[in-house]
């Protein structure tokens, strides 16, 4: 176990360096002459984060955008990478799959999460029931991939099935199915895994929002003779609109970037690849960084409208304050 000591030492050294840097900043801020004190404070407190974000996000984003217009050896090739993306059948499949993912995952996760939040509201054992559905949030995509392989497991006909679903198909007299191999529906079976992970997130946020809807409003609707569905549609849903937008946005962004599930379960084979996975394959496996960068740029353009919308909401909030 001697490797632990060596690794621990690296961690301690890193933390010590970090503490020294922060201590130095604090010292500078405190010792600054009064006339520039406020400016030095802002600079000192902001600089470490700002530098890291510039180097880690802003600069790479600009570089990648430029890289998208070069070929494998780094020479400019105009829009060739984008032409490749929108003409090659495999690349088109990747784009199609990404669209299916981003439509289905937010929609299904949010509906399940909302339904569940409504069902368990004030039910007995609410906390335990919530924990069970929320639990997949804590599990890595890789772990989830392995978990779901056990669910989708396939063995040839006439052998005892080891996968849960095929066991039930067997019991019902249906042929076993190769869930991860048969395109195009295998994409749906991967999507189910993501829905399984994200539903808990949607449920927790929406459940809190539902509890925030004024009781008097629901009461009034009930007294006016609205049934459960009408109460839900006309009072609860408008009351939690803000939370619904947040949940849909967050899950959509997470889905666009989804990578690990596909990577672990099919590695993008059998027509299941998505943009994020294909980007990794092209840039780091196939030696085509230009194509990878082009795919990343497309990903960015797909997320952009969502964030612009949210930034505008945020700006409005800050103007009110």
């Amino acid at each position: 176990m001697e490797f632990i000591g060596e690794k621990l030492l690296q961690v301690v050294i890193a933390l010590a360096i970090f503490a020294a840097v922060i201590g130095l900043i604090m010292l500078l801020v405190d010792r600054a002459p009064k006339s520039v004190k406020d400016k030095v404070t802002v600079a000192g407190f902001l600089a470490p984060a700002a530098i890291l974000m510039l180097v880690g996000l802003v600069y790479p984003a600009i570089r990648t955008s430029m890289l998208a217009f070069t070929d494998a050896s780094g020479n400019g090739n105009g829009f060739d990478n984008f032409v490749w993306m929108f003409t090659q059948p495999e690349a088109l499949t990747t784009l199609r799959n990404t669209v299916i993912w981003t439509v289905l995952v937010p929609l299904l996760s949010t509906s399940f999460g909302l339904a569940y939040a409504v069902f368990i509201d004030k039910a007995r054992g609410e906390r335990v029931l919530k924990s069970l559905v929320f639990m997949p949030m804590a599990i890595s995509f890789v772990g989830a991939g392995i978990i779901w392989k056990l669910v989708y497991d396939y063995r040839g006909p006439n052998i005892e099935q080891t996968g849960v679903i095929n066991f039930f198909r067997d019991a019902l007299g249906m042929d076993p199915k190769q869930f991860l191999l048969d395109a195009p529906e295998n994409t749906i079976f991967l999507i189910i895994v993501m829905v399984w992970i994200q539903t808990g997130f949607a449920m927790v946020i929406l459940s809190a929002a539902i509890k925030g809807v004024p009781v008097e409003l629901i009461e009034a609707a009930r007294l006016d003779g609205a049934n459960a569905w009408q109460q839900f549609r006309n009072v609860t849903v408008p009351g939690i609109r803000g939370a619904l937008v947040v949940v849909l946005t967050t899950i959509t962004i997470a889905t666009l970037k989804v990578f690990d599930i596909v990577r672990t379960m099919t590695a993008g084979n059998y027509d299941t690849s998505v943009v994020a996975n294909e980007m990794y394959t092209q840039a780091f496996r196939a030696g085509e960084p230009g194509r990878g960068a082009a795919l990343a740029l497309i990903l960015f353009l797909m997320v952009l409208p969502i964030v612009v919308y949210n930034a505008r909401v945020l700006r409005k909030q800050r103007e009110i304050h």
Partner: protein
Amino acid sequence: MTATPAPKEASKATRQRPGSDPTEDAQPIMRRVKTKLTSKWATAAAIIIAVVWSVPTFGLFVTSFRPAAKQVGPRSNGWWNAFVDWDFTFKNYADVLTPAGSQSANLSQYFVNSIAIVIPVTIFVLVLASMAAYVFAWGKFKGRDALFIFVFALQIIPLQMALIPLLQFFTQTLQLPAGSYAQLWIAHTMFGLPLGIFLLHNFISEIPGEVIEAARVDGAGHSTIFWRIILPLSVPALASLAIFQFLWVWNDLLVALVFSGGTADVAPITQRLAEISGTRGARDYLNPAAAFVSIIVPLLVFFGLQRYFVRGLLSGGLKG
């Protein structure tokens, strides 16, 4: 608001509580009766969903304790059979955790790597993000709000866009040694900052201004205010961000694949797991135990600190 209740239910309510004033008690009782009826089906549906949601994880848990012959090969069968013919073993766990058991899936080193990666990153992000959040909330400088919105918008840059140039920057410009934790620490910290600043800012900006003003009157400088007042008051927000950051970094695969170099010296447990689950082989029966080793830490963090976690989700989520 004072619409008349449906006559039928009102009379039912009076019948149940003959002594009480019907106009006062009709509504609460009616509500209770109604929710009881509707919630029975709703609760049943909720329980079914909860079971469906838990079965996959439970299946993994059971499988991880099943002997190799029951998992793969001609005599294997589904994990639910383990309850019919009782047959459990700890051998899989012994095999994946000790070097002697198996060289192909020895996880203990990777497990230590995951811990060595996640702890510094969490501390770095918490300190740097709270410093920046403090300045965005209470500092005064030109373009503060515009800059803050820009930081918020950085959340959208897909990691995929940052990876190639950042890798070049690390190896060529900074000459960071390959196969050390440094690349992973720095990369994860960079990627964690925008959301961290955003979440903490929401909390820190709501600290009452009088507290800070009072400290300033007493002669406290910015660094004193930050360490002695802001951080202690922000503990709930810091706790939830810490849990978040911990889970993200622990569960990450993409950053690890690009920056770790893939050796047992540095690579985290998710990366090892992805490797061994990607290759079908004779040691497949070790995958469930390996997977469970990798998810036990986040599960413990999750169940142990669930309260802060949910609060953190809400403070960031609902306001954003």
